[in-house]
């Protein structure tokens, strides 16, 4: 990655709250430009209801060093794929309560179409590439690793679902 590209990307993985808009507002002021006519800011939040179950809290497990590296790679790739000016993205790890922000993405671009497409591409790509795992805890006391199939002794039959 060129230094110029790095100067337009800011990414981090954190245990600290991502709820405030202000930290992204500050970053956008720093890495955005007066040639950007559009800003898209996305937040993913812990929702009370998931697949019909009442969630009480979430715990995110992460492969920290790799997640940092992948998130940065994804955002630099977005700069190359889309006509965007700057990208900032962060993902939270650890314990999160309802309504808390788990992921946030800010994209600036000259034109809004590029901003919408890049923002969407980044969150979709995070969801397939970022080595982070969500452990959902429910109000009924149960918990579940999201995306993990139920594993039995005859697990190999389910292997295809992991690919």
């Amino acid at each position, binding site marked *: 990655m060129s230094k110029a590209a790095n100067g337009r990307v800011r990414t981090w993985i954190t245990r600290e709250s991502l709820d405030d808009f202000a930290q992204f507002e500050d970053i956008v002021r720093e890495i955005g430009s007066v040639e950007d006519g559009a800003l898209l800011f996305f937040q*993913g939040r812990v929702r009370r209801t998931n697949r019909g179950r009442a969630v009480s809290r979430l715990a*995110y*497990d*992460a*492969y920290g*060093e*790799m*997640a940092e*590296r992948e998130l940065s790679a994804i955002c630099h790739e977005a700069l190359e794929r889309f006509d965007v000016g700057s990208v900032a993205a962060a*993902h939270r790890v650890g314990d999160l309560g309802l309504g808390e922000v*788990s*992921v946030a993405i800010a994209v600036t671009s000259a034109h809004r179409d590029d901003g919408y497409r890049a923002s969407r591409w980044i*969150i979709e790509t*995070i*969801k*397939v*590439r*970022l*080595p*982070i*795992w*969500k*452990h959902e805890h429910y109000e009924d006391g149960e918990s579940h*690793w*999201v*995306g*993990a199939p139920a*594993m*039995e*002794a005859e*697990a*190999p039959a*389910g*292997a*295809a*679902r*992991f*690919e």
Partner: protein
Amino acid sequence: MDRISVRTLFFGVYGELAARREGSAELAADSTVGDLVETLRGPGGLDWLPERVVVAVNHSYAEAGTTLSDGDEVALIPPVAGG
């Protein structure tokens, strides 16, 4: 060197099922990611581990055919669920 040693990491549900977050494995030199998975799944091992599990070597996603080196960090990656 006839044998290499790699560090293994188990995340998410794999950590829970393996009852450990970290381990290490000894392998023949020139072993691949696929060989390591085969070893881990072997007798008395992690028989629930899918044959084609997603693996990262030194923080990058790797293919089953990737050759391992002594000291590599190999992570077993369950279906990711960030966002």
